[in-house]
């Protein structure tokens, strides 16, 4: 796996493990987790991947990352 593929894998893995806590909360939990543990370069890479029209992210991973992107843009990320 190259770095981008790894990030997609990691995001999907996080979403898959967090999902049982409830679908409604999953996106928020994914966003929160990535905000707390990923460095800026990793976040930029995965956002760029989404912007390029990714189809390999699971729905909850994608929802979480989109939420995080919005929070980052408005300076509201829980870790930032």
């Amino acid at each position, binding site marked *: 796996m190259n*770095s981008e593929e790894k990030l997609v894998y990691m995001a999907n893995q996080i979403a898959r*493990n967090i999902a049982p806590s409830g679908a409604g909360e999953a996106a928020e939990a994914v966003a929160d987790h990535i905000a707390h543990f990923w460095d800026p370069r990793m976040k930029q890479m995965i956002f760029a991947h989404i912007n390029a029209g990714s189809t390999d992210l699971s729905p909850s991973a994608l929802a979480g990352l989109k939420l995080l992107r919005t929070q980052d843009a408005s300076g509201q990320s829980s*870790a930032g």
Partner: protein
Amino acid sequence: MGYEPQADFGTPEAKGAPVTLTIDGQSVTVPAGSTVMRAAAEANTFIPKLCATDSVKQFGSCRLCLVEIDGRRGTPASCTTPVEADMVVHTQTPRLQKLRKGVMELYISDHPLDCLTCAANGDCELQDQAGAVGLREVRYGYEGANHLDVSKDVSNPYFDFDPAKCIVCSRCVRACDEVQGTFALTIEGSGFGSKVSAGTGLDDFLSSECVSCGACVQACPTSTLQEKKVAEIGTPDRSVVTTCAYCGVGCTFRAEMRGEQLVRMVPWKDGKANRGHSCVKGRFAWGYAQHQDRITSPMIRERIDQPWREVSWEKALSHAASEIKRIQAKYGTRSTGGITSSRCTNEETFLVQKLVRAGFGNNNVDTCARVCHSPTGYGLKTTFGTSAGTQDFDSVMDADVILIIGANPTDAHPVFASRMKRRLREGAKLIIVDPRGIDLVRSPHIEAAHHLPLRPGTNVAVLTAMAHVIVTEGLADEAFIRERCDWDEYQDWAAFVSDPKRSPEAVEPLTKVPAEVLREAARLYATGGNGAIYYGLGVTEHSQGSSTVMAIANLAMATGNIGRPGVGVNPLRGQNNVQGACDMGSFPHELPGYRHISDTETRALFEGDWGVSLDSEPGMRIPNMLDAAVDGAFKAIYIQGEDILQSDPNTHHVAAGLAAMECVIVHDLFLNETANYAHIFLPGSTFLEKNGTFTNAERRIQLVRKVMTPMNGMEDWEVTQRLAQALGLDWNYTHPSQIMDEIARLTPSFAGVTFDRLDAEGSLQWPVNDKAPMGSPVMHIDGFVRGKGKFVVTDYVPTDEKTGPRYPLLLTTGRILSQYNVGAQTRRTENTAWHPEDRLEIHPVDAEDRGLRDGDWVRLASRSGETTLRALVTDRVAPGVVYTTFHHPATQANVVTSEYSDWATNCPEYKVTAVQVSASNGPTDWQEDYEALSERSRRIAHQEAAE
């Protein structure tokens, strides 16, 4: 201090109510249950003795410790006579003197009279007692039958056994039984023919079950069991108490010295982690500290294919600073980072993370806990609120049911294992969850009530099935949960685990654990009294490592097994200071004390103290740094005391990452494997050469005291400080105690810690603060640190590392008693006598299928790479599972391991790799290429050429 032997009170300490008696006219008050010998010793009256020592129970065989007691007939042995109120004891009377002289005379009549040339001369209890009883002649002569010509057993690399000097007091046998719990020794024969035996066909120590813990050597009152180093160097003339630098048990030792030369390491009886016990590594395997491979001069080179050039410290450090600045100017601030070491002190680790945050200007700092216990930090912080175990080691003595999952304490944490075995011999029940039949499943006087031999990678399914049994059979502690935990979260979790698809029967096909065995184990844990869980890397090093830690926490909360002695969740930490390294802010998202870097208030605290602005974004973890390096975005790294090339997964990828960097600075004792890719080498100092503190697995902070001058001229914290100064930082620490003062100032859980207090108290367990000024042996007593305990739903998610036709077996890895992690230390000691190479354990059925025999060379291949090593055919592993250690770089077991990792922390999934095993006739291309690379890379140019 000068040399004083450790006090020996003759028999163990008792715990009863106070009893007052009179000994030689002096009033003495001791706990009921004490012996007369102990009571006398407490009053500084040392009754002559030979077969008694306070590490083992009284035995009453030597008849030297006789006393007279008013109102009693005869001369009872003081070691077996319990104290009674108002008892009047006489320890010195003419009658006793005559009796003792007679006893000693008999002993000496069958003992070599070579005191002047004996290794124990001046440190021999037999010699001391002969003097104490006034023995001046031996009337029996030496011509009769004796044992003086019996040959010496020199098979053990660290100590000799000389039966000619043995007085058959059984102290060694009892120490092996009671202290170590191995039962390797026995007394063979009877009467005059009695002799200590290692109980094997060869009847030597090396081929016996002996684990070389040293308990027998310490217990021996003569020179019968004698350290070879004492024979070689002489008896010590001073001692310094310090802390072992091997595993997370954190044993304290007396480093016994003659001048600047270490003679022996003797476990310190007052050490609260080890209580006077030791293992083969801490006791004996310290020869690496003076090994010829030590690099003591800084070295640099432009490219990794060049030989090293020795340079001055000033040149090396200014070059390192200049390279970091150049790279940051060219590639940006975040193109650099550092790795702290769990083998270094808290103070050194604190400085490395401070250097990265305050000097490099980013949070790209990580530590080896990334590859071991990072899921513990995540899981226990999420559920309990603190990234640490809940108990002290003493707590195990109050446990009724011990559940071990993914840990092999007798190999990896042997001193604690001995304590655990003592409790098991007292009657505590044992449950083991492990794919392998580790020693504790069945060993002398120990047998697990239940062994759950699960398929690697199914921990969460097994633990959730245990939770299923506890909840559906009504075994949960509802009162505890209602009072201490979030009830709504519990109900959600209880509903989740109660689903029939999570029952033992439903998951048996994937876990391979018989449902009824699992049910019985769950019932025992929930209802057997105090339930204590101990776990290791077999829990954390999985794609669901963090989930497994949380599943363990769920079980403990559901059964009320938290917040008192005898219970709890206890991660057995791998390295001596992995807890401390994590405490000190070594993770890229946390400042010291586990406070997130994004927390403005915390950041402001550090910014105010350090006088710099800190990056508010998390930094990169080690695997992220390596990925970024391969991508060209990460260019320089400072690695203190960590060999990522050998220890981290997927060696090819680690090598590619390191090779892509422009400046790799390795700060270590030896030219390790990572140094093959380094441009700057800064020589490190051993734990014997520095001051500081380590924090063990029970959160116990203990002093490390310098016993000899660093061979390289500086302690590691001084090197980091010099690098920081070269980068322009105004650091002026003159002693590590000042660094600890800064840690305490900035970290609430360390608020009450100072070197002076540690010196006075011996150790302190964090949190140490106004609420707990004497520290916290047991946590979460009145409530969880986070408030209400949090139940987390942990669904089983199978690993993506799948077996299949090409890779049909599952490889799991671990370590062995005599070696330690990447082996950099232990491979440079005589411990190689026990483990000269990594072997692949394979079940006889799998070996037969492949035409392999024990000892054959085999090719071990995975999707990541392949290596070769020799096979060990054994039913310790289940069919379909193979196992190896990773102690030897020639094997490079991590060439095979995958890049899959824990979902929450990126802790590598070392414990599950799909592999194939086949016959081999030689090393792989990678092994040959790597050996050639290592040889080239380790060249050091002659001084003339260097200048």
